[in-house]
């Protein structure tokens, strides 16, 4: 796909053209193309400064280190497309992770634990959906409360880090599928990309997905068109919660442990990835592929800073903040011009 072409140092233009052929390119896709350009730019900068930057290994590590964030970003995209926001995903990810670690430590079988941990996310998402729809609590507060609840449950399970030595998890964590001589794909990466694919399908090939976009475009209009708005609004939070649950499993796999303090602030990373990926916070416009690219952008920035060595990690935050600002101001400028 376009990704291998990037790493193979093919000019950006060819990548864009091939994308154009695959996806009907109209003005709405511009933000995603913009993100792609930014990603290519950052890669170019990295490749210029450091040896070995443009290697399969670096790119593979992007996916290995960030598969949980990719899944979170997919769920967050659904929520933001309807004009809402979900602040609980970091805490739910931690809950799912530490719950799975704790159960596995007590010798529960993996094929029971994994679905259970994901289910926890789904249930919390349902709770949020009910709070927002039935009790008319604003998404910000409802997901905030869910965040506290999830974090609280984490602490109850355990305050310490719980190592995982379950064979299934270890297998998931250590397996590598080599592609070519420097590329590597992990089960987590496959799962993450699978979630992206499912998200893409749902958003673009089901009525539910089109309703999500319609709500973001105009909730009033969607109601008048007879669309099942209420049900859809609750379901997007269920989806976000489920994604957080899956993200928790992937994180457990990645760190081979569960820890109640993980995921602090991760929801912000997810939101930043979604915004940088071209999705409008006001809703109605955006693509999961863009969010995937957004995560890759964040990951690449982190990689550069690691490569730099002398730069300390806090520069990551500053650069991400600045990038966020640029994207937001651009979105605003385009919106203002259109009016």
């Amino acid at each position, binding site marked *: 796909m376009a990704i291998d072409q990037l790493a193979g140092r093919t000019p950006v233009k060819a990548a864009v053209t091939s994308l154009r052929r695959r996806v009907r390119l109209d003005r709405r896709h511009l933000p995603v193309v913009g993100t792609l350009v930014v990603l290519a730019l950052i890669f170019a900068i990295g490749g210029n400064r450091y040896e070995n930057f443009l290697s399969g290994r670096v790119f593979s590590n992007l996916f290995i280190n960030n598969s949980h964030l990719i899944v979170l970003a997919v769920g967050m995209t659904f929520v933001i497309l309807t004009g809402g*926001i979900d602040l609980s995903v970091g805490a739910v990810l931690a809950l799912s992770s530490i719950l799975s670690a704790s159960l596995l430590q007590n010798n529960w079988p993996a094929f029971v634990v994994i679905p259970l941990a994901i289910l926890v996310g789904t249930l919390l998402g349902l709770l949020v959906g009910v*709070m927002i729809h*039935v*009790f*008319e*609590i*604003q998404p*910000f*507060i*409802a997901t*905030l*409360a869910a*965040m*506290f*609840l999830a*974090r*609280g*449950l984490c*602490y*109850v399970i355990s*305050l310490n880090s719980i190592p995982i030595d379950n064979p299934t998890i270890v297998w998931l964590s250590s397996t590598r599928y080599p592609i070519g001589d420097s590329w590597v794909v992990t089960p987590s990466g496959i799962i993450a990309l699978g979630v992206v694919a499912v998200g893409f399908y749902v958003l673009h090939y089901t009525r539910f997905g089109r309703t999500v976009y319609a709500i973001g475009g105009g909730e*009033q209009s969607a*109601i*008048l068109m007879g669309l099942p708005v209420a049900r859809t609004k609750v379901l997007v939070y269920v989806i976000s919660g489920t994604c957080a649950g899956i993200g928790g499993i992937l994180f457990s796999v990645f760190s081979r442990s569960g820890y109640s303090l993980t995921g*602090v602030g991760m929801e*912000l990373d997810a*939101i*930043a990835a979604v*915004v940088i990926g071209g999705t409008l*916070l*006001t809703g109605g416009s955006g693509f999961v592929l863009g969010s995937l690219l957004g995560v890759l952008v964040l990951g690449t920035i982190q990689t550069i800073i690691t490569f730099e060595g002398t730069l*300390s990690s*806090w*520069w*990551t*935050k*500053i*650069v*991400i*903040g*600045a990038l*966020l*600002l640029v994207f*937001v*101001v651009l979105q*605003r400028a385009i919106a*203002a011009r259109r009016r």
Partner: protein
Amino acid sequence: MRNLNAMGLVRHRLFWPLAALIALLVANTIRTTSFLNIRVQDGHLYGALIDILRNSSPLILVELGMTLVIATRGIDLSVGAVVAISGALACSFLASAPNPNSIGTVLVACGIALALSLVLGVWNGFLVSVLGIQPIIATLVLMTAGRGIAMLITSGQITMIHSTPFKTIGSGFWFGLPAAVLIAGAVFAVVATVTRRTALGMLIESVGINPQASRLAGVQSRSIIWIVYAAAGVFAGVAGLMISSNIMAADANNAGLFIELDAILAVVIGGTSLAGGKFSLSGTLVGAFIIQTLTLTVTILGIPPAVTPLFKAIVVIAVCLLQAPIVRSRLAVRRPARPVPVEVAA
């Protein structure tokens, strides 16, 4: 002039929060009969209630700004970052100053910290009122980048300082009361006076309740919005000084962590709606006390510290649910309105 009407509104919305606060205090007193005791030692007041007051001071400061911002239909997620930056700047200055124990140096340190906090608040105001960016995303930018900036200032170290005058901000006593309480109280008094003595309070509410009608009435919403974000920045700066004074160090990572979320929750519990409009400073105060008392209650009731966040979460959810329209209408036995989702021309 407005007291009577304001009380009516506040009383209605504050009923559950106040009841919750009193319930907590009662539960504590049952458990520890000395809970309500205040003793005097070395000319200073001590006691559990004093601790609650002192520990809620930074939160109250942040909350004051947050209340005003929320009243204009906005939100400020960056206050935690500003807290960290303010503390980092003051401590870094003091750490490299030749005479950290002189009051003059301390005042300069505080001055530059507050000046930067003001600039950051003005920056937020600019993004929201001039560029018209949604408040949640505008302040998210500083929230993300801010901690990085704080770490930059401290070079990633937890900067320890030794300065007696600075120490009094967080843990010292003036006239028998904790200095922190006095500072928070003073700022509260200033905000209360300015919003009610000038027309600022009324205009803020007007903008939050009905921005369209306010515009047609000639209200300058741009400058008002700018002011509230600037104020939120400065107050967060003062809170930052307090927090770093408490630990005599600048911890860029943890200073003020989640304080914005606590502040928003306290404001909502206190009866100010996230949708903007009428705000209640006293309600915000009650909200802060509830959150602080909750933390103390957990210890006193012997609930293991691991469960504190869960306990807190449940109380918060309960209060939010109780304030929900559907619950309020069930309680008030109000005649349900006809569903009208669309405006058709007459």
